[in-house]
């Protein structure tokens, strides 16, 4: 199995899906000739031409809304938001329209659109190129939200998103793009949306997280292992709707739970994870549920001193895991 980067997994999934199904097309800002500002759509314009790789005007509500219309018609649009931070003008289209198309029409119309957006920090992107925005959408029945952590998951889940009959938000961690590499099979495969994945089996403490933080947790777990602390790591992968069963199992297994996100703490999706645990397996817990998250300030500043203070990293995770293990 070849080793590819997280962003290459994005590109491969797009390309293969466009080859497989004529109805799949890409639209967004700079996705064409430029191949995307991160180069996620590199080569697609050359391969599929400007009618299927559409450089749009700078207007996110239209990018989402046109994608939604095309999806209602029966196409399989993959809309790119250049940065997750810039999805905000499209919130009305996503929440009022995409999420509710099937329900409001009593199953008459559907909206199989995929909306991709790079999120997350640690790239000197400052307040508006570093945000985690998933919590804005993680309360909207009708939507699915995927946030993968590995190239393997990226490829399988993006393909699943494109083939899904409902709207999927697909958030890619921009720092993971080139940082995270992994084995990805050449044969076609998909990963079911809605299923969390145990990324490390362990017996002492449970870490539940998603996105780039999975890698941080895995790094920290290796360190802890040398001290005989055995961490169990659950990667949510789909953060809405959550895989409740997997969460309950993972929490019950060790009785000590650390919930981890790069997002601001209050109102982040790990609050919901805590609620699921405390509703379903409270008496299996041996320690209070611990949360490690970004501070409750708007987003990470630009200057390196301040960015570092905000941004999650393996050391912060390791520290929190140790504390929990020692509880």
């Amino acid at each position, binding site marked *: 199995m070849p080793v590819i980067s997280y962003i290459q997994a994005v590109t491969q999934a797009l390309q293969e899906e466009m080859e497989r199904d004529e109805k799949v*097309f890409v639209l967004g800002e700079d996705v064409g000739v430029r191949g995307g500002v991160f180069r996620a759509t590199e080569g697609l314009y050359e391969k599929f031409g400007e*009618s*299927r790789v*559409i450089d*749009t*005007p700078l*207007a996110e*509500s*239209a990018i*989402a*809304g*046109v*994608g*939604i*219309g*095309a*999806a*209602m*018609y*029966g*196409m399989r*649009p993959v809309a790119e938001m250049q940065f997750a931070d810039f999805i905000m*003008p499209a919130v*009305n*289209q996503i929440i*009022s*329209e995409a999420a*509710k*198309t*099937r*329900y*409001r*029409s*009593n*199953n*008459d*119309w*559907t909206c199989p659109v995929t909306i991709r957006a790079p999120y997350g920090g640690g790239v000197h992107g400052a307040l508006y190129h570093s945000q985690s925005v998933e919590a804005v959408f993680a309360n909207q*029945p*009708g939507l*699915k939200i995927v946030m993968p952590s590995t190239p393997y998951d990226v490829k399988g889940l993006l393909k699943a998103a494109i083939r*899904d*009959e*409902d709207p999927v938000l697909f958030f890619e961690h921009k720092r993971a793009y080139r940082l995270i590499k992994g084995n990805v099979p050449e044969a076609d495969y998909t990963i079911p949306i809605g299923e969390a994945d145990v990324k490390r089996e362990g017996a002492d403490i449970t870490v539940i997280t998603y996105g780039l933080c999975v890698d941080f947790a895995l790094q920290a777990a290796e360190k802890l292992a040398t001290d005989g602390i055995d961490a169990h790591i659950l990667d949510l992968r789909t953060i809405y709707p959550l895989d409740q069963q997997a969460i309950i199992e993972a929490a019950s297994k060790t009785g000590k739970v650390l919930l981890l996100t790069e997002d601001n703490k209050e109102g982040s999706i790990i609050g919901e994870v805590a609620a699921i645990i405390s509703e379903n397996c409270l008496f299996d817990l041996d320690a209070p549920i611990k949360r490690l998250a970004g501070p409750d300030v708007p987003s990470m500043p630009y200057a390196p001193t301040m960015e570092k203070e905000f941004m999650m990293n393996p050391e912060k995770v390791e520290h929190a895991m140790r504390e929990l293990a020692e509880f």
Partner: protein
Amino acid sequence: MVNTDEQKKMMENRHHRLGLSDNDILEMYRTMLLARKIDERMWLLNRAGKIPFVVSCQGQEGAQVGASFALDTKRDYVLPYYRDLGVVLAFGMTTKDLMLQGFAKAEDPNSGGRQMPGHFGQKKNRIVTGSSPVTTQVPHAVGIALGFKMEQKDLVSFVTLGEGSSNQGDFHEGANFASVQKLPVIFMVQNNQYAISVPLTKQVACEKISDRAIGYGMPGVTVDGNDPLEVYQAVKEAADRARRGEGPSLIETVSYRLTPHSSDDDDRSYRERGEVDAAKEKDAVLTFAHYLREHNILTEQVEKTMHDEMNQIINEATEYAEQAAYAEPASIYNYVYGE
């Protein structure tokens, strides 16, 4: 009542010049009248406490039906807004469907009683499901037209909205996108002079809504929304253009909202009765009937039969819908996602 100019216009055989037969315009009138009658019945039902909500087409039937007849109602796609009773009737929704919607019954094809009246959608007739937040349908219409272009289909995507709604960002973004991509979309703004209580002068400072077209590089025209033939002609030209691959058009139809905004509104607080009464004289349902009578198309006999038939249809539909069942409470859990 009608001045000489209008009288002349009335007497000319305008519909033949547009390629419309006598029967065509009789059908147009029939659709307008049916829309009006259904709407009136809805108000009666509302005032009788039988249905909780109505939002009206009254005053806009001429524009809605004139436009629809210029389209291919068997193939084109429409994205109507909440007043477009005339459009959805022309595109195949039945009186029974509409009554089922009014009563919010399980059989309502629009939403099975999930949405309020006026939130149209019926896939088999290519009436695209709509929501309440205004103007979101505009980018959808563009996306559908993009689908046509990609599949090289010779179809038109027709979307309507109120003039107030043309101030939403989605109008701007959608219109611009369509024009850059030269997509087969018709944007029709039904200017009825009010956005709820806000008069036109507080909504926009331009002279005509169609003045916005040049900013998107597309043709824009303003027509008399009380004249179904003028609307027909404008939409026909736009549809031909669209099918020829020449891109979108913007059409503004000017008329007046004859009812309060909805059954929840009381318009006496913000507009004079005299203004409403004056507008009623231009009501397309009256003036178009007059045109048809002048041309001996709407004879007394035809008119009587038409009214009788319609009353019966509406009565039957009302009765059926009133008797029909509501959706089961447990059905609310269905169709959040594909199953």
